[in-house]
């Protein structure tokens, strides 16, 4: 206990230095937490994917639509318990250079889509209103918050993929069942898209972007995928069917270079924590070389001395780590504000917190190793002779 007090007394000798070091480590841990959170946010689509859903899309690429009549044939395939479809709308809302004005807009089948996505929770009366009105839409809670959209508001935008000026009335606001549910999307009736295009661009075919399949058990997935893709193998639009998780994963993969560089940066951060901390410990130990020699003379063993150095390093690194993690929350919030809708789901994961503290602890141990070793090895006479 007395030894612990000595550690604290030592820490308070250079309050400014100790304080600065803690702040330095806190900054680095905060950056570490932020980057890990961003990587998690990137993967949110994969985390949020349901285990019983599959996606069928055009085999050549997602940008090619597939025919609407496929839905009946897919529904007949054994193991498939539900089919719905969706289509990417695009569109330009307000100033396209403002990140806030970009969010996902899908034309969906009002009767089946929300049955397949129970995580989008819509109050029954709003759902009924949505189904009744051709140009109604349902938007996510976060999206509504960001733009101040309320029930009954009209959202207007220019079409980019589909020409013309488009208008929807907000008839429903959904909330996510899980924290990993994306609450920034907008859904409207597929029939509305179909009718508008026929009116604006006569002769232009309107098809389906992708089908969503619900399967009875996850084990059935490979069989269902093969059955669906075989069915359309030789048709005009061959398909590719995969689990929703794999589908989302492919989006993440497209940005893998950025994710890799973020991971490299987070390792660099641990290096920086180490440097800042090592610097402080090395300095403190060097200044106190004579004191340690005196302690040795008094009969303190090498183990005690290691304890002093290590204790000091750990107290600093832990306080820095905790402070840094506390700061992670506001900075993540600020980041989400700076790039709204870029990451629909951004939460600090428990694993991130654990890793942050772990990194700080590890840095504390590593930073103390060399100076502690030096103190233990130092002959008493040499220590006493040292001039600081």
């Amino acid at each position, binding site marked *: 206990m007395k030894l612990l007090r000595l550690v604290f007394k030592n820490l308070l000798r250079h309050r400014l230095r100790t304080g600065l070091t803690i702040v330095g480590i806190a900054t680095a841990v905060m950056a570490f937490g932020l980057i890990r959170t961003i990587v998690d946010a990137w993967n949110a689509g994969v985390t949020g994917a349901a285990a019983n859903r599959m996606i069928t899309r055009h085999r050549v690429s997602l940008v090619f639509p597939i025919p609407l009549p496929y839905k009946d044939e897919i529904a007949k395939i054994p193991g498939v318990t539900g089919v719905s479809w969706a289509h990417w709308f695009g569109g330009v809302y307000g100033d396209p250079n403002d990140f806030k004005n970009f969010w996902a807009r899908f034309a969906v089948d009002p009767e089946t889509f929300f049955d397949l996505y129970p995580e989008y929770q819509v109050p029954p009366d709003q759902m009924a209103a949505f189904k009744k009105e051709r140009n109604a839409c349902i938007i996510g809670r976060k999206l509504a918050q960001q733009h101040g959209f309320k029930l009954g508001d009209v959202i207007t935008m220019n079409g980019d993929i589909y020409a013309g000026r488009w208008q929807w009335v907000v008839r429903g606001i959904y909330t996510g069942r899980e924290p990993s549910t994306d609450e920034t999307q907008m859904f409207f009736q597929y029939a509305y898209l179909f009718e508008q295009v026929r009116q604006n661009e006569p002769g232009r075919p309107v098809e389906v972007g992708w089908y969503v399949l619900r399967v009875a058990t996850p084990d059935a997935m490979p069989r269902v995928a093969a059955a669906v893709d075989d069915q359309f193998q030789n048709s005009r639009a061959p398909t590719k069917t995969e689990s929703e998780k794999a589908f989302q994963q492919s989006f993440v993969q497209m940005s893998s270079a950025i994710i890799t560089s973020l991971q490299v940066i987070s390792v660099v951060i641990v290096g920086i924590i180490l440097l*800042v901390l090592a610097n402080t410990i090395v300095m403190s130990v060097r200044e106190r070389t004579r004191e340690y020699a005196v302690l040795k003379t008094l009969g303190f063993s090498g183990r005690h001395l290691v304890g002093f150095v290590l204790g000091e390093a750990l107290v600093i690194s832990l306080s820095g780590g905790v402070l840094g993690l506390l700061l992670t929350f506001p900075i993540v919030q600020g980041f989400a504000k700076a790039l709204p809708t870029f990451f629909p789901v951004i939460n600090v994961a428990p694993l991130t917190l654990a890793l942050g503290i772990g990194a700080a602890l590890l840095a504390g141990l590593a930073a103390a190793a060399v100076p502690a070793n030096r103190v233990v090895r130092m002959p008493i006479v040499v220590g006493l002779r040292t001039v600081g």
Partner: protein
Amino acid sequence: MRIPFSYVWRSLWARRLTTALTIGGVALVVFVFAGVLMLARGLEATLVDTGSPSDAIVLRRSATSELSSQVDRATADVLEAENGVARAADGRALLSRELMLVINLYKKKSDAFGNVSLRGVTARALELRPGVRILEGRPFQFGTHEVVVGKSIATQFKGATLGSVLAFGGDRWTVVGVLDAGGTGFDSEIWGDVDQFMQAFGRPVYSSATFRLADPAHFDQLKARFQADPRLQSVELKREQEYYREQSQTLAKFIRILGLLVTTIFSFGAMIGAMITMYAAVANRTVEVGTLRALGFRRWSVLGAFLLESIVLALVGGALGVALAAFLSFQRISVINFQSFSEIGFGFALSPSVVVSALIFAVVMGIVGGFLPAVRASRLNIVNALRAA
């Protein structure tokens, strides 16, 4: 009177380990800072150089990319006859009607599929883009199922090398050549005959038309004329460079915001590192400072010496960081650009402006980190300082 520079240098050398640790910290921060700038520069350079200042592109009104754009044959015919379009020696318009699609290919490295742009072009396309040349093999023949692939595609994706056969649009396409577009966006595309592509994919309309301006200086007049032309109401004219700059905007802005946020946080950490080192330097050398003052050096000389020490620390760290970052120029990455929904390959571009910004950044860190400790040193009382120890 100034304190000689050798004093500064020797002071740093005397505490080699601490000096090295601080320099290391600054170097890491500058490395990340320079890396981010290089990446954003590289991306912008790739896409902006893709466009030529003397060319213009016609897209469907309010289309944000070629992928979401449609230009029908009638409109293309009107454009072909326009006298704002430059003519080749044979009197035909220097205009290429193009179709833009995206197909999936598998990446060599990760085995995951990536989106690749497929550009159908007409015979004028190569004339319009003098920067694009055939690196290997030969150009594709019009009227056949032959394609040429950009060199980024050939190196990053499976089954896209010379002589291989790609399957898309219900047909098989032979790769007969590799394009070198000088590091521009075309390096990440596959080119073939536009009519063949339209037939294979059942597309009745083009995506865009690109043409050489007869008079680039009068672009605005031409744009106004197009807007007034009843036959061209569905389309919009853009300078090609402007179009490609817009294409890079989101991704470049994202890299910048993320990168600068991270480096700002980092630099704060490095400044604290420098500050700790300098405070310790001042505390250790109290007697020295007292001696210097007793010898007749003024307060501001002491302040200058300590500040200089901190700047030297930061500058060495900065130079080291930039040197490390220079190795990144050998690295090329390929990442999705959501604006065009296809992969774009680009590198880290080291430019003089990046080096200068990184070094300025380092010096600022040195000044901010060293200022308070230097002030403390300069304010020491001579007698107390000499008595300390």
